[in-house]
């Protein structure tokens, strides 16, 4: 990912800021210029909840370039109380403990590094819930 693109995406990737369409009420994540449901462009800010449920996952053993030394890792789809679904990496999880329906929560982590001299990219991932508070 280029530096400008990483920088532009900080609000959505690091603070989980999404858009809520004022005309149809749907949540757009990642944010778009126009609502993908009704085409309007009148939004308010919406922050994705901290906790959700894992509804699907896959274990990556044959990774894309740049992720060779991180296998096996888990990518999943998380569903929130309001029905919103997003995809994210699931971290700190023992592969044998992965279960559909397990509760997960946001955690700030490193995603990748552009080599030894490039930028480090951070984003929110999800992990099994640490503690119910």
């Amino acid at each position, binding site marked *: 990912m280029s530096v400008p693109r990483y920088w532009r995406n900080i609000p959505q990737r690091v603070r989980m800021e999404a858009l809520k369409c004022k005309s149809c009420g749907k949540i757009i994540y990642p944010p778009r210029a126009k609502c993908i449901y009704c085409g309007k462009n009148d939004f308010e800010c919406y922050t994705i909840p901290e906790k959700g449920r894992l509804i699907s996952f896959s274990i990556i053993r044959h990774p894309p370039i740049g992720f060779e*030394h991180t296998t096996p890792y888990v990518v999943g789809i998380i569903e929130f109380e309001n029905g919103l679904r997003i995809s994210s990496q699931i971290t700190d999880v023992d592969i044998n403990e992965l279960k559909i329906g397990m509760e997960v929560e946001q*955690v*700030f982590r490193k*995603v990748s590094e552009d080599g030894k001299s490039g930028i*480090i990219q*951070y984003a929110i991932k999800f992990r099994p819930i*640490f503690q119910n*508070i």
Partner: protein
Amino acid sequence: MRPIIDVVISGWGSYIPIYRLPVEEVARIWGTSADHIKQELLIYEKSVAGIDEDVATIAVEAAKNSLKRSKINPNELGAVFVGTETKPYAVKPTGTIVAEAIGATPKILAADFEFACKAGTECLQCCIALVGSNMIKYGMAIGADVAEGAPADPLEYSAGSGGTAIIVGSKNYEKEPVALLEGSVSYVTDTPDFWRRPKESYPSHAEAFTGDPAYFRHTISAAKLLMEELGLRPSDFKYAIFHQPNGKFPLKAAKILGFTREQVEHGFIVPYIGNLYSGSSMTGFSAILDIAMPGDRILLVSYGSGAGSDAFSFIVQDGIITKRDNAPKVMDYIKKKRKIDYAIYCKIRGKI
């Protein structure tokens, strides 16, 4: 030292990675005696940052936990300082990464501090000064490290990962203060007991020189100076925390000063997670805030090689009760663990 305006702790929060490397695993690789090392260091296992963790990620998690307790709006923060000796970037502040992740940008001071293991309490001194002079409303001081010892070096058994964030504000507007600062001192000299040159991956140390002229001289002098200035004795404190590079040093320093085992044991976390470097004394302090009661007096003494100590005296306030359960406690993090072997340790710390 004492600010013009009374400064209080508004929130605190820690983070410790789930991975643990037992002393037995390191001893297995190098053919040493695990029992001997455990006796020598009083360390049983150390916390290890995961493959996708570094000082920035640890600092952000600790910062978020401190905000859950403090309950302030991140925009009220006027400073975010990160004390560490394992910055993700050699040039580019970690403080901005943290400030952005918690929604505290852009009207804020942000910087990284380095003073070996005492960088975190240096951040605390500076936040106290900024709040105490009314330049900012709230300040966040973080001590965090993902420390490593060179393979087969004695530090490989002890160098752990984790950190703590402390939010300070003024007594004048903080409605639920956690603890009131009574005073602090800083005591430094040029003592080369431990260092790391640019572009080196692992620190070097001057073996036996790390004890008397370094750790003990500075921690004991700082603690004595502070007690002198405040007219206090060891028996006036309910709890005391000394920097924990291993288990022996803090217990010996406490004993020399006249503190009992009961006063230090609740903040004594090094046997289970190792030395958190800049996060060490602050995480011990955080473990005390997890259990302390209003009226308790707490002594916090850090130590950083190079060398120096900061000492603080706090008196716990009523706000600690309502805020305590809003974030995971240090003991929760210590208990939630996954043991790894030396091979996985090498993989997740990028040694292979």
